[in-house]
């Protein structure tokens, strides 16, 4: 595995075509996403920080390809799909569709363009109008775009119903008479009405039972072959993605952590987050051993993403500074736990009343820090200099200066993962991953994992 850095360093402003671009030079991609950012502004009048839902995403989608985007809820994958279609207004970056920059399209042009790209939404009960007949639902995009004559539209709808596996008599029925799978078929028929080239599939099967899910996935694959469609499939179910996609991007907190061909990525994940995510999938095979990596906690708020690597707060492979190599694992864990508590407190929404109560020495919902600290470090001890560092931070935090305490701890125990943002590394052919561990001076995630397994099996 080569640990080469990709060429472009991360500059300020709009990046050039850097990032996670895995396509070869001579290809002619249908969709090019370049440094896309979508921020939701804070509703605070002053001093609020925006929610960075999509934070600098770049990739290409080849013609006829299915690109999957996976990630936990809240990682920004839905916003990404919607931003590409201009259903959300991107803050920065470009989306090129067949050479046209979509972010600059306005009004009439944008409406015209929309025939080329459609979306299939997740929830088949709320994404179609209960008060319209199925025929009208599927016909609506044709009406909006004034597609040929009304009678031809009707014909087209009957064709579409047949294409997605519904009967022509369903034209006159209402959605409530349909099962979840059939409703999703209606949603797909509607998306296909204008013969688009590109479909964003936003969790198209998440709400369905496995046996129905299989049918919809088969349908989507058939349609792709029949109409030369290009798909962006957004899903949290990794087994669905593995079955359908050519390439997969793994997203975490607004960033693509790893991108590569599906099978390679599933068989030998490079990024620690991909590792953890894959190991968390319950295997439908009771004899499969559990090499599960259970992640601590939940993803941090995209309003306050960690500095450095976005995954650093939960990463099981986080790099420990070399000077602390001699600290025992348990002792090190306690220090990390202490820092977690301080971080959480620093970001907790504290109301004015609670602040006042704290000042007046009344009981608030926060346990006094002294108690937390003494409990945490009860049964561990450290060498003198480390003890001093912890002491100092505790004193600062107890005096109410949590940010200063955190800063002091970062100075003493901070790792490269917290300070530097990892750039994408080409880890194999057509594959890139963002992690400091791909740099030569650190052990690769694979080696760390192997090392741990050796420890577990004495």
């Amino acid at each position, binding site marked *: 595995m080569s640990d080469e850095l990709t060429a472009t360093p991360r500059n300020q402003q709009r990046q050039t075509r850097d990032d996670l671009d895995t396509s070869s030079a001579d290809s002619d991609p249908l969709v090019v996403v370049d440094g896309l950012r979508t921020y939701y502004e804070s509703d605070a009048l002053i001093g609020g920080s925006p929610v960075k839902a999509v934070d600098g995403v770049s990739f290409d989608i080849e013609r006829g390809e299915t690109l999957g985007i996976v990630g936990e809820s809240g990682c920004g994958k839905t916003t990404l799909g919607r931003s590409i279609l201009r259903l959300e207004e991107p803050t920065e970056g470009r989306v090129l569709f067949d050479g046209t920059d979509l972010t600059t399209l306005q009004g009439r042009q944008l409406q015209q363009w929309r025939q080329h790209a459609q979306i299939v939404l997740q929830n088949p009960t709320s994404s179609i109008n209960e008060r319209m007949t199925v025929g009208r639902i599927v016909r609506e995009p044709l009406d909006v775009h004034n597609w040929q004559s009304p009678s031809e539209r009707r014909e087209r709808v009957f064709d579409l119903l047949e294409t997605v596996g519904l009967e022509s008599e369903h034209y006159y029925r209402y959605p409530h008479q349909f099962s979840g799978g059939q409703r999703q078929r209606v949603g797909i028929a509607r998306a296909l009405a204008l013969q688009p080239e590109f479909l964003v599939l936003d969790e198209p099967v998440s709400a369905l039972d496995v046996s129905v*899910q299989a049918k919809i996935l*088969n349908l989507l694959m058939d349609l792709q072959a029949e109409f030369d469609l290009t798909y962006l499939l957004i899903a949290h179910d990794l087994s669905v993605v593995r079955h359908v996609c050519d390439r997969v991007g793994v997203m975490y907190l607004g960033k693509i952590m790893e991108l590569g061909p599906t099978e390679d990525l599933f068989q030998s994940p490079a990024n620690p987050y991909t590792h953890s995510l894959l190991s968390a999938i319950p295997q439908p095979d009771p004899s499969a051993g559990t090499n599960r990596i259970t992640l601590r906690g939940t993803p941090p708020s995209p309003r306050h993403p960690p500095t450095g690597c976005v995954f650093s707060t939960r990463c099981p492979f986080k790099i420990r500074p070399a000077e602390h190599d001699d600290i025992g694992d348990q002792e090190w864990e306690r220090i990390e736990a202490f820092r977690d508590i301080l971080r959480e407190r620093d970001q907790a929404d504290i109301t004015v009343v609670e602040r006042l109560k704290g000042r007046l020495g009344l009981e608030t919902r926060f346990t006094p820090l002294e108690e937390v600290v003494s409990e945490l470090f009860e049964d561990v001890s450290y060498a003198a200099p480390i003890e001093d560092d912890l002491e100092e931070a505790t004193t600062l935090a107890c005096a109410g200066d949590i940010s200063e305490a955190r800063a002091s701890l970062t100075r003493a125990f901070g790792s490269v993962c917290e300070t530097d943002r990892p750039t994408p590394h080409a880890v194999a052919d057509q594959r890139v991953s963002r992690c400091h561990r791909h740099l030569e001076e650190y052990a690769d995630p694979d080696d760390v994992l192997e090392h741990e397994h050796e420890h577990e099996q004495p």
Partner: protein
Amino acid sequence: MTDPILSIENLQTTFHTDKETIRAVDGVSFSVGPKETLGIVGESGSGKSVTARSILGLVDGPGRVHPDSSIRYHDPAFVQRIARRHPDAVRYLEDDRDDGDAYVFLEDASKTGQDLEVASGWVDLVRAPESVIEAARGSEIAMVFQDALSSLNPVFTVGNQLKELLRIHRGVTGGEATTVAAELLESVGIPDPRRRLKEFPHQFSGGMRQRAVIAMALACDPTVLLCDEPTTALDVTIQAQIIELLERLQRERDLSIVFITHDMGVIAQIADSVAVMYAGEIVERAPVDVLFESPAHPYTSGLLESIPGLAHGRDRLPTIEGSVPTPNEPPVQCRYAPRCPKAFEQCRRVHPQSVPVDVSPEQGLDSHFGDAEGVSGGSDHDDHRVSCLLYPESLPEADRLELHRARSDDRAVSAIETATGGESDE
């Protein structure tokens, strides 16, 4: 085989509407041993949630648990407590007297009155009055629901809700309740628990909320935990955390768990044995490794095949035609027959009964069908039971049909007998 802690026999829960009667749970039998995890798996509409709710008496009108059903809770301490409190409702199994009011059944007990000591027996939760069910609900059998947000009250703090439970079920109040509540939150892996007690459910993340709900279910130290899709609404990484938590709690607290889910992957991870439900009936029951290795019922194999992860490559996924029917008629045929690739003519005439997948020649058939259906018996063959006319595998077709037919007739006859017997007091 160890005695079960909870056993369900012929559970029937019906919903009566003006249009039709929906037999949501139609003759389900299973048992859970101590410290065992039983997984119930099935598609939506197969009746798995209604089964769990029936056990706790949580089925609302127009739903009704049929009086012939029996839900037996076997914990000796609980049986003893109830037997002492309601001596009128006690019946010894050696008596042949069948009186309709009894709901405490004693198999092995010594002494009488307030000194009564129970070694084995059960309380029938279908026959028992509401007060007894209330004593069992929460304290003995607790439930974790799918949607954590709607099982927590949004206007009270989590601490408030935990302390309310502790006050009602255990009589713990004040500072002591706060301490116990904090310990509970800590035991389900919520950091900084004292702070969390003062927070509202909306301030918890999805995974934390589910942990809080599990803490509430554990508040009264139950013996059996019914988990109704506890991880379905969660991300895989959080799901892994919750599964790990349940495994740890089971070890620490000797819990028996009934785990309901539609996710075969989760079942493979957590369950010791599995029951597959289809249209209100259990169609197959087996230890987890047997079920995944050699599924017997065509529905089970169909379900396993349609999981995308198992079929790598870009081939089409095998699917099951049609959809789960609504069981609104008494079963006179196999409910899976219209979708079954292996269906033959008789499948539409005979209602299959739960039989062992295979019988060895030296064992007479009678020994298998004499005992109560579904309750796993002694031999290895009994561990794997399936309701399908293709089984027992070693018998010729005519014998198999005869067997299933005879068993359905028996059931029908006994149902009629009990129905009339209840009315005419002999």
